[in-house]
């Protein structure tokens, strides 16, 4: 098991070993997570407006209310949040979310980032926007947000982010399923763990018609590609048949076809949607039709 943080105490380790089943180990990890946002040298001219607070499991709703459901879908474990006040009445809000795996943290990051942000080498991947910065490292997804525009925004955000990233000892693997996306011409990619995340990319009918629990999305110049992973080929075939029926009954689609195990349909934007099985996966392509937009 990777040691997540550099400053885990010997006392915590002993307590974990002795009373692990009682959940004290979780408390030690919780304490360790809070250390991520302990006083940051990069913010020495800032004051702590709200000391770090930890949110575990369902408590995440207290931090971000309905926004919590997305994180839970990805496998949320706990988060720590703090707020700092600086020059010109600026406020810096920092949140670090610990997910159930590095792939999940990477997935959250992939969904919430966009190519409009400048790539930045922090953690295992990050992007800098005008007033905020997000990155991931190991099982952690971290966001830093300024509430007032600052000339020094870039420096403040990157400085604090680097220091937090340095406190995270663990690294991890990106989602393996990303290898299913052809790399040529790939403009953007996302990893999803369910219908909520998927609906932020493309809405396939009403409800989770493909029964997605794990999938990837790739954006290309003239089409979008989805790869959904299932436990078995039989499961994939069954889900494709169910999706075909759902889409055929959905008024949002027309020109629906179901031939030789390949689903075809046109959406209201005149994109052509095709879906087929490949082994234990469903491959869906949403293609822009020339002259349709």
């Amino acid at each position, binding site marked *: 098991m990777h040691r997540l943080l550099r400053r885990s105490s010997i006392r915590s380790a002993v307590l974990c070993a002795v009373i692990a089943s009682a959940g004290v180990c979780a408390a030690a990890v919780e304490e360790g997570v809070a250390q991520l946002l302990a006083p940051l040298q990069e913010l020495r001219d800032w004051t702590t407006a709200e000391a770090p607070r930890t949110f575990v499991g369902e408590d995440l709703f207290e931090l971000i209310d309905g926004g919590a459901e997305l994180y839970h879908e990805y496998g949320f474990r706990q988060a720590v949040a703090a707020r700092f006040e600086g020059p010109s009445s600026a406020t810096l809000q920092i949140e670090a979310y610990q997910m159930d795996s590095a792939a999940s943290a990477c997935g959250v990051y992939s969904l919430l980032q966009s190519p409009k942000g400048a790539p930045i080498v922090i953690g295992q991947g990050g992007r800098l926007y005008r007033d905020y910065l997000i990155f991931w490292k190991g099982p952690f997804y971290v966001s830093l947000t300024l509430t007032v525009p600052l000339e020094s925004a870039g420096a403040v955000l990157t400085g604090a982010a680097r220091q937090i990233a340095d406190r995270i000892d663990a690294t991890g693997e990106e989602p393996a399923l990303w290898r299913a996306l052809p790399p040529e011409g790939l403009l953007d990619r996302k990893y999803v763990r369910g219908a909520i995340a998927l609906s932020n990319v493309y809405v396939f009918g009403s*409800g989770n018609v493909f029964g997605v629990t794990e999938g990837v999305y790739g954006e290309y110049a003239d089409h979008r590609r989805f790869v959904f992973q299932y436990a078995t080929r039989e499961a994939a075939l069954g889900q494709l048949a169910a999706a075909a029926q759902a889409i055929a009954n959905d008024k949002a689609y027309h020109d629906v076809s179901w031939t030789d195990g390949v689903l075809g349909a046109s959406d209201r934007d005149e994109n052509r949607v095709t879906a087929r099985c490949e082994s234990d996966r469903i491959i869906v392509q949403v293609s822009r039709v020339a002259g349709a937009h």
Partner: protein
Amino acid sequence: MKGPVSRREFLSCSARLGALAFVAYPWSRLVGAASPGPADVPAADLAIVQGPDPFDDARRAVGLLGGIQRFVKPGQRVALLINAPRWWTKPGSFTSPEVSLAVVQLCAQAGAREIVTIVDPPAGYWRRSGHADACAKALSLVKSSGRDWVATTITKGRSLKRADINRALLEADVVINLPIAKHHAGTGFTGCLKNMMGACSSSTNRFFHNGSGASGEYEDVAFLSQCIADVNLVRKPDLNVCDATEYLITNGPAGPGELGHAQTVVAGIDPVAVDAYCASTFLSLRPERVHMIQQAFEHGIGQIDWTKLAVNKTQS
């Protein structure tokens, strides 16, 4: 060559010029003035005001609906549902205090005896408005409604049959909904309809997310959306004033994310129409594909085709 102007001609011309000057004068900018709006123009059902001053734009939008006096009478108790709870802190995630304060001022000017907040804004919220000092008297009428829940049956609810609703929503003389139009990762959009969740207890709201028994606890967006539509059957706000000045267009409801800056306030009596307009205009969504808007329309709560309403759009 025309002869000297007669006394009659002079007075007639002067009167016309005077009337023109009266109409052109920006009366809305007078502190303490009642809702602006041309008296002879029929009240709109949907008012859209774009401008650099959210406080003034909100006042003008209500004016285009006929003025606050259409909604608030002297001595009435007004309940405000402002989408600015303590957990929405990032830019574009909460209703601007400028918009909220404009409505508070209008209610006070209309003679409201009490203004209660169903969801309490965080400390310092009102002070963030540049008009806070000028509206101090109006703000003195504002107080919290408290966390008093009433078990309410929703007979026509399809997924939500009962809910714990804030008593102020049920008993206030007037309810004014003050949402922000923004992206929402779960439902795609949040505005007037979803803001009604703010009037529900946390256990009721948890049911919205978990109650369908879906295999993945958080995956049943259709159920969540139906519950939102159902809860809007409890009480339709008398007025909706929706903030579309600065709002999240990605990564809502919490952010951080990309921001839209339409600098617009949208006001209307029909929450479905306001949401349909805002979802399509500011987030490029098809209203019929936003489940809760479609389902609320099917309930008969409002009109999804906002173009069928009397719309007044203006720039200040």
